[in-house]
């Protein structure tokens, strides 16, 4: 039996090609997605091991209550936790510690070096050609490296580390890309503007930085820059400790060192030492969680491919079994058991699954290699391992084999159980009714729709249910569950939808082509399950892409309408690198001739509502509301006058803030701001104390030296004298900043809520005027984020824009946008997302074509006689082609239409759910969806070519005379 199975498999190889391709694609996606994830994880861990390479980290000992990402300026911070739970951000933060602790740490035995690491992002390096370098959005980071701030994973290859503000060292990779060499003068744009610097060194890091440009700067500069950007001075999140300056400690040694440090750490420091490995694991995990969405997305398409694959296989084996029925009947009549017949079919499936899976694994591997090579060419070198692990391969193989066997099992059962006589007469069993599936599918779809309705209520009604737990649920859950139910429900219901679809979709072809159209249309509902399964591949693909297309175009439309209806300015200026405009830059733009009004909007950092709720407080002039954005205070009730409120020093809050905080118009609320200021008196004292301490030490050692000299031990005396000198020398090298004492003052202000605005971009923000902002913060915590400008009346906007661009040219990073460009920044981003989506759609179309080709091939095989008859009574070849073409087109239009309907519904639900987050406008991209539909007709016609060719190759005589 095994031999018969293998021989059959070889004989049927031609027919297996399509099944093999389907399995290959499916398996390659599975393997590719695992492989890609492994590669990213590997890359992340490698970068962690390089960029956070300390043996022990000392960090705050108290966990911060933080479920709403404090400290980041993300606009999602007040959005009822929905977005943070969607991105799976679960990292814990600890209290910050004083960087001066590093000195205490370095005295602990076993510690070779201890230093806080300062990293500054949003820098811009100007290359040798005078242009700012940017590479695929990868960041440019500044890291403080130098004596006392070692970075073990880096090796200096040329020159020295930066020793002053105007020196930098670059990685050799960055040097290559920027065209700079050691010794060159260039410009680096820091948060406070461009600085002339000299490249004084070159270094390598242990792993590639995935395209990020690393600039090593003087540690003191790094410290002050990072303090500027966070608005906190003398606070760091962690201090890195090396046990050895050359070789990393193993895990056990790390633990020993951490234990020793914990024993010696003063209680007052509120700090705790943990091993480097554990910190790296935590960070790696949180980064990996953020990248985690990539794999499910790829897997969805793997599932589509495998689903289509399984019924391509089922169809293929149905055909094979159909054709081999006589052979099986013969085997049965000479004594083969049903199980033996079953096995001959299953063995063929195994061969097919094996070939498909192995090819799929190879293809998946190749795809990941290609992606990595592509990224490499695009300037994002990755050193993560790209080869699939043994587990990945086994998973791929098992998935491929299981799908094949599942697909072949039913036809194999048919072959095995058919009684010999019936098998000889090969009759077609009538299809089981589809009513049960209609009911189950409809119930699932309705449940899904209920989930969506509930989602809508959750967002738009304050307390939709009496249960608090339900009301606090994040909207992502019902939304996702609803979508899953609707999609599965439609898949289950699809066979029952075939008949209505036949009536509707067949109307046009039946009238355009009276004979072929009608024949084709009626054929559609002959095997409803098969038709529905074939259409499902397109349905799922189009539903996903259609839904995202609706969301994307709604987002685009929302931004456009915001600009079109609300925005009255002519230009918007922003810092493309780090989001902050310096006073100098603002001044330069305000001074441009032709600018009538310039309204800066700045963020006030470190402000909290009540006691601890983080906030996004912006400062601006009342002119923001009179000249730039018309405030929208809602239609139904009076929510105050924002202009007057800002003028009077009241608080203007966004509607979402009002809802989350349960604040009403006219209420007085408490706003706290933490101000960290340099305590000059304490600093002077600390410096004096330190001086005194050093003097005392020197004095003591010198006395010792004198005593030794008096005793005649000249050699020892000499050593002591040198020690004294060394102490004096060391004291000179101590960074004076470490002796700066700061004082944290908390400013508490009671502010009246003067207006509540519903402008979508301001929903999660609160506004105060500049005067109040100055009282709340220090200049460091008060950063200009954006500058809106209006040109003089009658001025030529284009020429004013040119002048503005000239004015900010020396700063490299200031981006001036006119109204259209302001709109298109959003559009460009959305378009690039759409391109990826359309690539995925193309893929599901390819898979769907296989499915349609296969289904048609099967039905052509089953209808050999009927087609032969049609030809015998005068049907031309063209008419046969037309009939099959129409049949295929109806199947594919059926799938596409279902997909579009479900996709649009899902898109609309998502849009209205996130209306408060800026998706104010609903826009359905009818044009694109229309293209999908036309494309689906083409897909059907293309898919019918090969089955029609096969149908016509069969001689008419064989077709009608095969008794």
């Amino acid at each position, binding site marked *: 039996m095994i031999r018969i199975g293998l021989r059959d498999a070889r004989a049927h190889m031609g027919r297996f090609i399509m099944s093999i391709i389907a399995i290959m694609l499916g398996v390659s996606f599975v393997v590719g997605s695992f492989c890609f994830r492994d590669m990213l994880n590997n890359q992340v861990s490698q970068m962690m091991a390089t960029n956070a390479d300390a043996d022990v980290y000392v960090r705050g000992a108290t966990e911060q209550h933080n479920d709403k990402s404090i400290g980041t300026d993300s606009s999602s911070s007040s959005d009822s936790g929905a977005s943070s739970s969607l991105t799976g951000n679960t990292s814990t933060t600890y209290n910050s510690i004083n960087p001066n602790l590093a000195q205490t740490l370095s005295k602990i035995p076993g510690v070779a070096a201890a230093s806080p690491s300062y990293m500054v992002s949003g820098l811009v390096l100007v290359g040798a050609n005078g242009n700012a370098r940017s590479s695929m959005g990868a960041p440019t980071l500044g890291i403080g490296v130098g004596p006392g701030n070692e970075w073990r994973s880096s090796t200096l290859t040329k020159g020295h580390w930066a020793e002053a503000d105007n020196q930098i060292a670059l990685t050799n990779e960055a040097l290559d890309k920027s065209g700079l060499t050691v010794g060159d003068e260039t410009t680096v744009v820091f948060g406070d503007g461009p600085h002339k610097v000299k490249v004084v060194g070159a270094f390598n890091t242990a792993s590639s930085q995935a395209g990020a440009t690393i600039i090593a700067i003087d540690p003191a500069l790094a410290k002050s820059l990072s303090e500027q950007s966070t608005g906190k001075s003398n606070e760091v999140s962690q201090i890195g400790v090396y046990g050895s300056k050359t070789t990393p400690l193993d895990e056990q040694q790390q633990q020993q060192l951490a234990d020793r440090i914990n024993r010696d750490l003063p209680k007052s420091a509120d700090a705790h030492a943990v091993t480097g490995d554990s910190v790296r694991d935590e960070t790696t995990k949180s980064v990996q969680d953020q990248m985690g969405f990539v794999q499910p997305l790829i897997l969805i398409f793997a599932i589509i491919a495998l689903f289509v694959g399984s019924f391509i296989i089922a169809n293929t084996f149905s055909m094979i079994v159909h054709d081999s029925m006589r052979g099986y009947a013969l085997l049965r009549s000479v004594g083969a058991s049903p199980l033996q017949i079953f096995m001959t079919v299953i063995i063929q499936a195994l061969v097919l699954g094996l070939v498909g899976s192995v090819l799929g694994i190879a293809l998946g591997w190749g795809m990941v290699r290609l992606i990595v090579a592509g990224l490499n060419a695009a300037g994002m070198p990755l050193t993560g391992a790209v080869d699939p692990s043994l587990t990945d391969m086994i998973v791929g193989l098992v998935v491929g084999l299981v799908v094949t066997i599942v697909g072949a099992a039913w036809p194999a059962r048919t072959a095995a159980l058919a009684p010999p006589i019936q098998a000889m007469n090969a009759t077609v069993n009538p299809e089981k009714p589809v009513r049960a599936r209609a009911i189950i599918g409809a119930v699932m779809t309705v449940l899904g729709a209920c989930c969506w309705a509930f989602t809508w209520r959750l967002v738009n009604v304050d307390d939709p249910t009496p249960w608090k737990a339900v009301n606090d649920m994040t909207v992502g859950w019902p939304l996702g569950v609803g979508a899953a139910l609707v999609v599965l429900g439609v898949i289950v219901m699809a066979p029952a939808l075939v008949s209505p679809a036949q009536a509707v979709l067949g109307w046009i072809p039946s009238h355009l082509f*009276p004979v072929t159209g009608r*024949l084709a249309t009626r054929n559609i509902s002959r095997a409803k399950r098969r038709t529905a399964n074939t259409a499902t591949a397109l349905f799922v693909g189009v539903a996903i892409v259609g839904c995202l297309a609706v969301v994307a175009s709604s987002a685009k439309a929302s931004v456009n309408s915001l600009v079109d209806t609300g925005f009255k300015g002519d230009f918007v200026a922003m810092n493309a690198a780090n989001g902050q405009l310096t006073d100098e830059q603002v001044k330069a733009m305000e001074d441009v001739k032709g600018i009538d009004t310039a309204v800066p909007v700045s963020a006030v950092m470190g402000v909290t509502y009540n006691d601890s709720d983080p906030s996004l407080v912006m400062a601006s002039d009342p002119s923001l509301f009179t000249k730039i954005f018309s405030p929208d205070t809602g239609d139904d009730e009076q929510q105050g006058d924002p202009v007057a409120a800002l003028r009077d020093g009241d608080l203007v809050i966004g509607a979402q803030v009002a809802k989350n905080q349960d604040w009403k118009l006219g209420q007085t609320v408490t706003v706290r701001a933490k101000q960290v200021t340099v305590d000059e008196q304490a600093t002077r004292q600390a410096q004096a104390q330190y001086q005194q301490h050093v003097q005392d030490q020197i004095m003591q050692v010198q006395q010792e030296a004198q005593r030794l000299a008096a005793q005649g031990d000249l050699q020892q005396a000499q050593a002591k004298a040198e020690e004294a000198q060394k102490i004096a020398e060391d004291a000179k090298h101590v960074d004076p900043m470490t002796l700066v004492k700061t004082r944290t003052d908390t400013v508490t202000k009671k502010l009246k809520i003067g207006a509540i605005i519903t402008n979508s971009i301001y929903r999660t923000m609160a506004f105060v005027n500049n005067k109040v902002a100055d009282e709340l913060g220090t200049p460091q915590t008060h950063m200009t984020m954006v500058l809106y400008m209006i040109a003089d009346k009658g001025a030529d906007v284009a020429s004013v824009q040119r002048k503005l661009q000239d004015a900010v040219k020396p700063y490299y990073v200031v981006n001036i946008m006119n109204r259209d460009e302001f709109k298109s920044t959003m559009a460009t981003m959305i378009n690039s997302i759409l391109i990826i989506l359309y690539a995925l759609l193309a893929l599901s179309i390819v898979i769907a074509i296989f499915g349609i080709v296969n289904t048609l091939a099967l039905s052509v095989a089953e209808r050999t006689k009927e087609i032969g008859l049609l030809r015998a*009574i*005068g049907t031309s070849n063209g008419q046969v082609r037309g009939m099959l073409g129409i049949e295929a087109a109806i199947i594919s239009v059926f799938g596409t239409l279902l997909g579009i309907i479900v996709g649009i519904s899902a898109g609309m639900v998502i849009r209205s759910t996130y209306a408060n987050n800026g998706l104010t406008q609903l826009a359905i991209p009818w044009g694109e969806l229309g293209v999908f539909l036309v494309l689906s007709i083409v897909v059907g016609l293309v898919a019918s070519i090969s089955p029609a060719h096969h149908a016509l190759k069969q001689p008419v005589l064989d077709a*009608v*005379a095969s*008794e």
Partner: protein
Amino acid sequence: MATPISASTASPTRTIPDDQIVARAVDLCKTYGQGDSRVVALDHINVEFQRGHMTAIMGPSGSGKSTLMHCMAGLDQPTGGQVFVEGLEVSSMNQRQLTQLRRKEIGFIFQSFNLVPTLNAEENIVLPLQIAHRPIDKDWFNTVVRVVGLEQRLRHRPSQLSGGQQQRVACARAMMERPSVIFADEPTGNLDSRSSREVLGFLRQSVEEFGQSIVMVTHDPRAASFADRVLVLADGSITMDMDHPSYDDILEVFANPDDDQFDTATANGEVAL
């Protein structure tokens, strides 16, 4: 187009006036396979079919009777010789011409009915005309339907009809396009004797009332007895040509398998190998 009959037709069959010939085979050969496995299905056959007659072709299995009909109808390509239907040479036609021939000149009735399962009886009957984009003659349709007795069954799908009814639909379909000749391949092969008689009755009626020409392959002497003329094939050659034979005449031919004719025919076949 009409080619005069060549003088060399050394046919055992009688000569019919030219304008009375609806289909004709000239020196028709059909062989399958090569070398040792070569099988002769038709061995230089010359035959003419008369317009307005019903001709039955009989013979044992493997005698070549089906092959002869398939070649006549353009369903099979002859190895040698020519086939003419209404003076058109079928044997040299390409696919497009064959399609036109099937639309205008030829009708088919098959043993296994071969109706389109998705169409109801009426749609099946008018299908050939619709395929050919020809207008439907309503009166003729009513006449045909009345003759085959399907007035009450027009809205039924094939699966809702009995075998006899299905074959009646097939007959009506063949008659509907008023072809020059209807080829019927064992039309009663799958029917019980009562249905067989009915179907043969319609065919007979269409010959007599409407002058339809019919060529029918059968191995049922009862069916053959409805024909105006019966040809008997054995091993690729026509061995007998009977004019209006009675049922008993036909039975007699097949009752004596050891008859000279069959022996000779078998010997000829072996020589041909």
